[in-house]
């Protein structure tokens, strides 16, 4: 009796924790059965390529949402970082290796600076990050357009675009890069003081402050990480498309937020995980891909994506309550 109860408890716990994974599995099974091409090596490669940018942005977003913030500017920061990197890469008189190195550094730095500014402004004056990053959404977009005169930057070294489409055993290199980021983020969040502080701030900022830690500093770090991932996403964007457009990434922030929330991270902060974010990004990617393979119209596709987002959040609410009562 005792053992069955335990097993049942364990099963509940498992479903609880794996809920999002089960949802993903359900989608995969559904599309595998109902479409001809879903479960083919090529298509899996496609999906992984397609979710990479969103996943990278969502990893950074996870940090910000965990501290109870939000970052609406990542799409614009990505465009800004991309055009800065693009300008660096197309500077005359550079060899391909120098050009790529310089561009990557410039892009990452541009992203980090924007993130740092987001963090500083919202943490120093305790202004909701919603409004600061809304400002940054416009600043970074405007800056991207200003720098380029609204012209697309192109003509990158061949080596760079080859990196964007290269595969290792059918897995896109850019996706492996994103997975590495997930691993690093997981390690930071679960095994470092920084991670503990980030969860702590999301749960009870005052307690962290009273314990003598600098909430300001950790908030800045969270936003800077988010800016950095936007910079990394910019490099991946460029490598994949071989251009840097100042109007890239419009609305990407919302997809990144969706991935984080579908992945079970609470919008109130303090609860969630980057593994969930990976699952969330996969769900969004699988859905976008599978619904096209299913032959659904663009408008239906948009509606269903919205329904899934709401369903995921409802499920999470339910899970949170259920978790409390046991």
């Amino acid at each position, binding site marked *: 009796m005792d053992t069955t109860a335990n097993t049942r408890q364990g099963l509940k716990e498992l479903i609880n924790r794996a809920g999002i994974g089960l949802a993903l599995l359900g989608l995969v099974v559904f599309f595998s059965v109902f479409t001809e091409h879903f479960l083919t090596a090529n298509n899996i490669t*496609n999906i992984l*390529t*397609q979710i990479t940018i969103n996943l990278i942005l969502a990893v950074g977003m996870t940090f910000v949402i965990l501290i109870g913030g939000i970052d609406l500017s990542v799409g614009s920061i990505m465009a800004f970082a991309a055009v800065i990197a693009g300008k660096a890469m197309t500077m005359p008189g550079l060899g391909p290796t120098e050009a790529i190195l310089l561009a990557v550094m410039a892009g990452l730095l541009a992203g980090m600076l924007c993130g740092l500014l987001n963090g500083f402004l919202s943490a120093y004056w305790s202004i909701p990050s919603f409004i600061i990053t809304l400002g940054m959404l416009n600043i970074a977009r405007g800056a991207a357009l200003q720098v380029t005169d609204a012209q697309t930057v192109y003509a990158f070294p061949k080596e760079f675009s080859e990196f964007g489409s290269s595969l290792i055993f059918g897995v896109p290199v850019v996706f492996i890069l994103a997975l590495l980021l997930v691993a690093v983020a997981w390690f930071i969040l679960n095994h470092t003081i920084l991670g503990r502080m980030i969860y702590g701030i999301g749960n009870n900022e005052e307690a962290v402050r009273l314990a003598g830690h600098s909430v300001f500093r950790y908030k800045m770090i969270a936003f800077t990480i988010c800016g950095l991932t936007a910079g990394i996403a910019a490099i991946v964007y460029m490598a994949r498309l071989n251009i840097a457009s100042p109007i890239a990434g419009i609305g990407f922030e919302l997809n990144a937020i969706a991935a984080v929330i579908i992945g079970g991270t609470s919008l109130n902060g303090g609860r969630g995980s980057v593994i969930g974010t990976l699952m969330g990004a996969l769900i969004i990617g699988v859905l976008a891909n599978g619904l096209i*393979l299913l032959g659904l119209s663009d408008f239906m596709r948009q509606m269903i994506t919205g329904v899934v987002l709401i369903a995921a959040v409802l499920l999470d609410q339910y899970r949170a309550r259920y978790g409390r009562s046991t």
Partner: protein
Amino acid sequence: MSILKSLAAATLSGLLLTTAAFAEDKPVVGLVMKSLANEFFQNMMVGAEAHAARRGDYELRAVGMQNETDFESQINAVENFITEGVDVIVIAPADSRAMVGPIKKAIEAGITVVNFDVALDAAAKTEAGLELAFVGPDNRGGAKLAGDALGKALGQGGKVVIIEGNPSADNANERRLGFEDSIAEYGLELVDSRTAHWETEEANSVFSTMLTANPDIQGVMAANDSMAIGVVRALEAAGRTDILVVGFDNVPAVGPMIEDGRLLATVDQFGTDMAANAIDLGLGVVAGGPPLEGWVKTPVSLVTK
């Protein structure tokens, strides 16, 4: 605080004075553009400014918007131009219905209005009792040029897909219709047609999925070059060199792709000159020329290697 206020007042009166200074001899042209974040309109604006400097016999006041759907700031711009009493308004409407009202008001105020780039909706014009010529390219005809190039290359029964622009945009619809005209004429088979909202990354994702679903695709018709670039990159990533792509707009970034054959063709609608030409037409009317009528077609031409 009061210093700030008086400073603001001084600046404001300064602005009013400069506005009043327009009312001299040179005619004033108010140019209302679409999103200047769009490279196409940015280039058009630069073209118009160069034109104003070259002609030197009119005053150019140009206004752009933040994004493609921000037609409220277009309405504001038109109303401001009416207040300022400009002689000509040259406008690329962001919305073919929403802009009918403000434009009618401008005409009633005695301003010569030239509608370019996107035509106002015919039904909405009739309803408002507005008669206005349209100066602009034939998007449908242009798209058909590109579609025909693809049709000739593929021959009867070639399997093609269309990557559409924003579903609510008139030029997106016109271009899709043009592609469909080619499909009918050359007996092509349309396998799928989807929007990628004019956007490179989305076109890249959407097209690679379409290719998975239909590996036997032979040709792609993209409603603009930004999306064509995304398609070309998807083909490179998939290692497919057997699929032909056509685009629209002839942006600089596709130059190398036309050169090495990754893009079969694109269409140039001479965007840089478009606003300038419309301004010429408007000034012609102000100078006592006959009013514009019907559809003044601006050139489109096919660009291939």
